């Protein structure tokens, strides 16, 4: 089995963290976009009901997706590796 502290193992771990953080940033970016549109609609009084209703449904979906991916990442790459 490959040594967990070898340079290549450390590089792999770093890249895995970058990949995970990249995914989380993508999800946060999309959520920020929803919030921006919602805030603009409320500010302009431009159908705020739709502008609130749709992101209220969509944001939890994105949070759930990010949670699932992070759960797998933690379970396999962080805790799983330790075990």
């Amino acid at each position, binding site marked *: 089995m490959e040594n967990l502290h070898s340079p*290549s193992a450390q*590089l*792999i771990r770093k*890249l*895995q963290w970058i*990949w995970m953080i990249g995914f989380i940033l*993508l*999800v946060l970016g*999309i959520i920020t*976009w*929803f919030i921006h*549109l*919602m805030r*603009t*609609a409320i500010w302009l009084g*431009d*159908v705020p009901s*739709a*502008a609130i209703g*749709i*992101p209220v449904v*969509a944001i939890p*979906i*994105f949070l*759930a*997706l990010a949670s*699932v*991916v992070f*759960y*797998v*990442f933690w*379970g*396999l*790459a962080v*805790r*799983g*590796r330790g*075990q």
Partner: protein
Amino acid sequence: MVDHKDAHEDILLAPIAHTGPGFYWTVAGLSVFILWGAIAYLVQFYYGLGVTGLMQPVSWGFYVTNFVFFIGISHAGTLISAILRLSRAEWRRPITRMAEVITAMVLFIGAGQILVDLGRPDRILNVILHGRYQSPLLWDATSISAYLTASLTYLYLPMIPDIAILRDRLGKWKLFYSVLALGWTGTEAQQRVLNRAIAIMCVIVIPVAISVHSVVSFVFSMTLQPMWHSTIFGPYFVVGAIFSGIAALIVAMIIFRKTYGLEPYLKPVHFRYLGQLLLVMSLLWFYFTFAEYLTGYYGAEPEEMKVFWAKFSGPFWPYFWAMVLCNLFIPLACLVRLGRHTVGKVLAASLAIIVGMWLERFIIVIPTLSFPRLPFPHTVYTPTWVEMGEFAGSLALFALFYLLFTKVFPIISIWEIREGREEGVKEVEERIKSYLPDEIKGTA
């Protein structure tokens, strides 16, 4: 003695380990169409949308037809795969990966149609910065972004054990596979985490997939245009999407079965089950089409009737009746009796359905815009070589993406096949016993 585990792995890893001349010929052939699409796009970018057949009042033509068609195809994967996983249908094992890949790839192509339709792609920034949730187009952008993220996640998670096999067995791209494998070693704890995550994703992805095509239909049905303003458009579009999705999945299965020698995995029984599903969807599609057109006809609202007759016997009759032929009569003829030549019959039905469902999208989008409620002069839309090129290029790009995927990842899930052989058989036996009444003691 031959190690069967390794023998299966060898067969399924062969397309990644070895590349024959057929691959390069296929890439070259697809590149010709992609080049046609690229030239068409550059011409459109330089001269504007005037080089297309689009005009007033037909401002949506091939591009929006293709958008709805491709998004529909995307339902092949995630939805079918998630339903089969949740219902623990054991025959799903060699199919799910192929289905999930279709979804992920075709969603990019579908979303790309909107960029092409914009004429000026920089205008997408207006949607990001100043989008208005009053518009169903923005509902689309929201639901498609959720579906794309969910589909990519749902494709990636079940691939992790296979990526670990690639990391351990393949000599190339070790760093790439090691990063994506997330340190998978196949321990019980890791398996538990992965199974739980896949189960959660199955539950999330089904409503998201249904919402996507419902929202695509809302782009039409929220308007007051004749033959668009319909309450059943949501389920009608979802049914059509699953219908075309299964057909696309079958075609992909048959191509890769033949090309990569996957006959031992994709057996006639898989095609029989999918064929039966296709038959049910064909009848369901006909039911929705009949209900939709009968309601319009019975109401006999003058503006509606103009569009209705334009489809039935007017300038769009060849497309309309070709759609009925491809989506109902050919599937019925091919799929009612699947005794012999199952694969050939299912392939013929699937190809007809793909054509028929594209025509259905065309028949929904174009006639209504050609005969709008507002007093525009009636016009007939004719696509130019630019739109044809974009369509051909998009199809070729999808095929190329799919092909490249099969050269990097196994197209059939290795670990799920192994799990089926080692645990699935026993689990199914126990499950069947649990359905049956217990034996009564004392009887012979």
